[in-house]
């Protein structure tokens, strides 16, 4: 089976002031990668004009583009409209669901969405007490359950989870530990570990580090732009050569 070259980036935070800048950096991506995964925080404020800039920058590439939204993309309560306009531009947007992309006959399944926080085993919030606390934790729990089902339903040769929030602490190293519960949740890792995946891509933690692993052994990569410092990073699956 042919190896897959996965380009990934997150936290591109596009706006009118950056129109055209990111596109220049990804021209020719088809020579380096088979698919581009974008792990949320596509915009700064989640406005429609910013969403349109994202659609322009990411559409019309010769390779498939799969994206999820991040917390910034929710800020103006226009998240669903941003999803719609990105989909209209030909971008596959995952909102707690899965999709399969066929690359020269190799089926790559990607499942995921924005994700959410809550913290990591032993130091996390519980569904207990005030309704606000319970709602916070329940949100992550419900997302994780939808991802587990989406992963299970994927009929693919390789599976990747695409998220904005982190599934592990490893890739948050460099961030203040006090804010870890706002950067991710172990429940996202638990869902991936339950069904299995080849790779877990996320962003959100600008001051974190690139590499980590889930408790079940799935490789985790934080591809936030300030972390990778490149227009994207390429990961090769199942092959000695790319």
């Amino acid at each position, binding site marked *: 089976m042919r190896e897959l070259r996965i380009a990934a980036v997150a936290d591109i935070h596009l706006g009118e002031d950056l129109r055209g800048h990111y596109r220049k950096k990804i021209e020719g991506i088809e020579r380096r990668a088979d698919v581009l995964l974008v792990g949320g925080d596509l915009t700064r404020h989640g406005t429609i004009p910013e969403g349109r800039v994202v659609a322009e920058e990411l559409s019309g590439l010769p390779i498939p583009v799969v994206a999820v939204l991040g917390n910034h993309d929710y800020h103006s309560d226009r998240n669903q409209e941003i999803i719609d306009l990105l989909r209209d531009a030909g971008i596959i947007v995952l909102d707690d669901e899965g999709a399969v992309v066929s690359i020269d006959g190799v089926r790559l399944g990607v499942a995921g969405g924005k994700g959410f926080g809550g913290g990591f085993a032993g130091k996390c919030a519980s569904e207990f007490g005030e309704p606000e606390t319970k709602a916070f934790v329940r949100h992550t729990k419900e997302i994780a359950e939808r991802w587990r089902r989406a992963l299970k339903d994927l009929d693919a040769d390789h599976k990747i989870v695409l998220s904005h929030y982190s599934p592990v602490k490893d890739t948050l190293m460099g961030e203040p530990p006090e804010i870890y519960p706002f950067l991710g949740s172990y429940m996202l890792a638990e869902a991936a570990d339950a069904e299995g995946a080849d790779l877990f891509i996320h962003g959100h933690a600008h001051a974190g580090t690139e590499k980590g692993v889930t408790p079940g052994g799935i490789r985790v990569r934080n591809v936030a732009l300030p972390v990778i410092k490149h227009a994207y*990073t390429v990961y090769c699956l199942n092959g000695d050569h790319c």
Partner: protein
Amino acid sequence: METPHYVAARVQRALAEDERTTELGIRVDVRGEEVYLRGQVSCDERRHQIENVAREAAPGLRLHNEITLVEVREPGEEEHL
């Protein structure tokens, strides 16, 4: 003089919540009458906008804008998993 701890918290909140910035990743330190801003942004305009919002939230203090620009480089070496 206002407690530096609360000034820093106010500036940090302003940077996150002000529509001109919505920056969550900027570190704010206040020492006496000096305010230090550190972090990374992707263009010069954003760096200046952060300074403006911080200045409004901490009037009368001396501001040091130590924010750096992220240089988005061409993709480098791929990783084999």
